[in-house]
């Protein structure tokens, strides 16, 4: 019943898509479509929430479509429900934002038909209960988002981004397909129930894991499969970028969890966890380092998605490692951390992308070097963006901190693991995690500081106006959720408990709502605890106390004057620190190793009035070592083979002749 209701929503979304195709001339279509998606996503959100809070018994449904002898299986369990909440929350907020933002879309006919389809695809992936429907929906999701990436296809870079995206999506789908092939076995037991029951040999199970990691990892943006992500996510319209980065990557995480934790069952070797863990650690650090080197705001955010996916996978890797050693209590902590971060990242990444969208609408720019001072014309957007930036930088009392804190707590439990490799790996990954958190803070000081603070660096930035109320509403809903999840983490953890139990042989964290003051104490209070609510209260109290006392007892006068700047006031806005210069110290520290960064200064001779130039060259090691050789090899081989297009007929005949003789010889020898 509930499932058919939930399934009817994607169908309705697809209908909306169809309507968008046919109404491509209607003036009010944009508002109409987005209202429809808003309503549908909200309904789905409410339905799932009600289901979740009301006992969450799994519901199943089989429809006579899809593979004929199998039918289409759908199922709603706690895991799906959680991700459905993430997806539909993101969908609803993005739709709300787009009610305002969509008015500025230059090519609505390339956005409107695909946006509802994209949402429908993501919903269907989560509801699927057999491999065919899962992959079908998965690929459909990729395809509709690909169309959205190409919405502004006149920019050459976007076409390239779309291409890379689609190829990587196909790669991922094929990897998943192979892993499902293993799970299903030669008889083709494609429904998830059969797969769950099937027993794989350790070797095949490990292969399945690797393939699932490749498949889901390429969609989620795990290093080294991330190359498409920072190109594709920014190319789409901002509300779609928000969905892609904030939500679609979570669907990929869902795919990984579903295959590895649910279908595959218990991990069979400790190195599974180690593999996922190290990939997660590398992604976290490389992601944020890449992000620091960017000056395109949306691309910066996209690289941060890589980082956060890394953090999520660190949690998942830890959970695998714990499960492999039957340490279910610890695994529960790691899983909770990962899932919590899934929720958090979807909130603040959507928020940040939507904020960028607002900036884009107001200025037409997403290059930070041409922005600045936007906090004056756009105070509300700036506030919301600031909350998002603080949240993603893992600053208490916001939500990003809670999940990273939980991940750290899980890492702190790794000394209990019996395997040496893991014992060494975990602290190293812990260091990487800490490094990435600190670098993320640096990166968002840059992102917020260069974009919103200082003085405008271009006329467009100077003439910006505050964004519309729909967009603001969307931004503040997300900002409020970031804060709420940050100060009431115990409730979220309790909400995640059934999912963790589902994936973890029944073991989950102890109920948190009984803790005094809603403290979060995942293991025991003597070991570690955190209370975001109290931290917020204390900060608010001490801060307002300071304000009150100082303004009462001392001085509350403020005058305006020119900036002092050590005695050099009134300089041009171009003398401000730019995004590039902000990142320079970090580039010096990390860049020369990771990116082979080279700086080249061209200084005009004395007397020459030309500006001096500083050029920075960065090389992406992943691209250089992984993708470039593959591309080159394919081109080289195909060039070599291309000769075969230009043979003479005689040579073609020789080919046939040769094939015939070869086969006859084979027959003779076969006897």
């Amino acid at each position, binding site marked *: 019943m509930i499932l058919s209701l939930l399934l009817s929503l994607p169908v309705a979304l697809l209908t909306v898509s169809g309507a968008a195709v046919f109404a491509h001339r209607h003036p009010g279509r944009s508002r109409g479509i987005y209202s429809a998606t808003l309503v549908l996503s909200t309904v789905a959100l409410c339905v799932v929430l009600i289901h979740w809070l009301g006992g969450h018994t799994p519901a199943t449904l089989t429809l006579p479509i899809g593979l004929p002898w199998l039918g289409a299986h759908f199922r709603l369990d706690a895991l799906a429900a959680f991700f459905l909440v993430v997806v539909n929350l993101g969908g609803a907020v993005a739709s709300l934002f787009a009610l305002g933002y969509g008015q500025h879309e230059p090519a609505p006919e390339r956005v409107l038909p695909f946006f509802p389809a994209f949402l429908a695809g993501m919903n269907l992936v989560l509801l699927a209960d057999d491999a065919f429907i899962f992959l079908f929906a998965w690929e459909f999701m990729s395809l509709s988002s690909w169309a959205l990436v190409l919405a502004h296809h006149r920019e050459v870079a976007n076409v390239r981004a779309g291409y890379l995206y689609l190829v990587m999506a196909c790669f991922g789908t094929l990897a998943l397909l192979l892993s499902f092939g293993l799970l299903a076995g030669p008889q083709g037991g494609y429904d998830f129930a059969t797969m769950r029951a099937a027993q794989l040999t350790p070797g095949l199970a490990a292969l399945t894991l690797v393939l699932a990691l490749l498949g889901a990892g390429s969609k989620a943006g795990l290093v080294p499969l991330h190359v498409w992500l920072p190109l594709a996510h920014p190319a789409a319209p901002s509300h779609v970028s928000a969905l892609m980065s904030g939500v679609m990557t979570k669907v990929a995480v869902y795919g990984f969890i579903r295959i590895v934790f649910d279908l595959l069952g218990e991990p069979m070797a400790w190195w599974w966890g180690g593999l996922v863990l190290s990939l997660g650690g590398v992604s976290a650090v490389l992601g944020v380092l890449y992000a620091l080197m960017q000056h395109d705001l949306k691309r910066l955010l996209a690289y941060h998605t890589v980082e956060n996916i890394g953090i999520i996978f660190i949690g998942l890797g830890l959970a695998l490692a714990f499960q492999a050693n039957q340490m279910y209590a610890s695994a529960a902590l790691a899983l909770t951390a990962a899932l919590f971060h899934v929720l958090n990242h979807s909130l603040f990444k959507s928020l940040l992308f939507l904020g960028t969208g607002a900036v884009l609408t107001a200025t037409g720019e997403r290059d930070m070097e041409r922005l600045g001072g936007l906090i004056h014309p756009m105070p509300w957007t700036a506030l919301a963006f600031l909350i998002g930036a603080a949240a993603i930088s893992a600053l208490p009392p916001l939500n990003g901190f809670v999940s990273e804190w939980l991940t750290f707590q899980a890492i702190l439990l790794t000394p209990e693991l019996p395997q040496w490799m893991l014992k060494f790996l975990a602290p190293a990954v812990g260091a990487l995690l800490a490094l990435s958190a600190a670098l993320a803070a640096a990166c968002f000081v840059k992102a917020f500081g260069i974009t919103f603070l200082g003085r405008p660096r271009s006329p467009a930035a100077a003439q910006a106006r505050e964004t519309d109320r729909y967009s603001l509403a969307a931004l503040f809903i997300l900002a409020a959720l970031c804060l709420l999840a940050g100060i009431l983490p115990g409730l979220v953890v309790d909400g995640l408990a059934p999912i963790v139990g589902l994936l973890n042989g029944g073991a989950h964290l102890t109920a948190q709502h009984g803790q005094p003051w809603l403290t979060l104490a995942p293991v025991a209070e003597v070991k570690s605890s955190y209370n975001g609510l109290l931290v917020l209260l204390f900060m608010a109290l001490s801060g307002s106390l300071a304000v009150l006392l100082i303004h009462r007892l001392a001085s509350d006068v403020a005058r305006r004057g020119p900036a002092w700047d050590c005695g050099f006031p009134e300089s041009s806005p171009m003398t401000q620190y730019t995004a590039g210069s902000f990142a320079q110290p970090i580039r010096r520290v990390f860049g020369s190793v990771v990116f082979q960064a080279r700086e080249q200064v061209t200084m005009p001779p004395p007397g020459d009035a030309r500006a001096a130039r500083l050029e920075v060259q960065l090389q992406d090691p992943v691209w250089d070592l992984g993708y470039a050789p593959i591309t080159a090899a394919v081109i080289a081989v195909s060039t070599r083979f*291309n000769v075969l297009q230009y043979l*003479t*007929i*005689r040579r073609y*005949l020789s080919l046939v*002749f040769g094939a015939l*003789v070869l086969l*006859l010889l084979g027959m003779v020898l076969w*006897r």
Partner: protein
Amino acid sequence: MHDLGFDIAHFLAGGMVVTSFLLLYQARLSALINVFALHSLVLTLAVGWQAFIQHAPHLYVTAGIALVFKALMIPTALHRIVRRLGIHRTLEVVGGVGRDMLAGAALVALAILVMLPVTATADPLAREDLAFALAVVLLGLLLMVTRQNAVSLVIGFMSLENGLVLAAAGARGMPLAVEISVAFSVLIALIVIGIFLFRIRERFDSVDMQAMDAFREERRR
């Protein structure tokens, strides 16, 4: 009687293989056409003999077709074409005749080897006949592969078809429909080839296939 019949069939089929070797040996176009006529003549005899020993009158039709079309009409037409194109004197052989002969011998051996495992229950006549037919087919292919000129290519192809007809005739009781269609196909093939050669002459200066292949889109990429 049966033994004699078998021997003669064997002799004629073997004669076809020998003629195929002769085809391979020819360096001049006009000689090649002549040998092809001989090839077809031997085919006529072979098919005729099969018709006689199988008591299959419809095979006489096939033999007649082979005689009229392949032994007489086509060689005549080809002679005319070749003369009109002015290429009756030249025929460059790729590689060398000796090498071709060696390859041909290997092919014949292969054909026999391939037919060996066929169980004895099968008609021995068909079995021997088939081995020779297969050899003729393979030699025809070899001819196509080793010659550069379009006319010799066509001849190679037709000698291959002769091998097919030989095989078909050897198959006891194979319905007539097939033979007729074989003959038909050769006819149609010839017409088409004629058209093509004509067209090709119109548009290309030579019938050398390499010259034709040099003209190709995307060549430089």
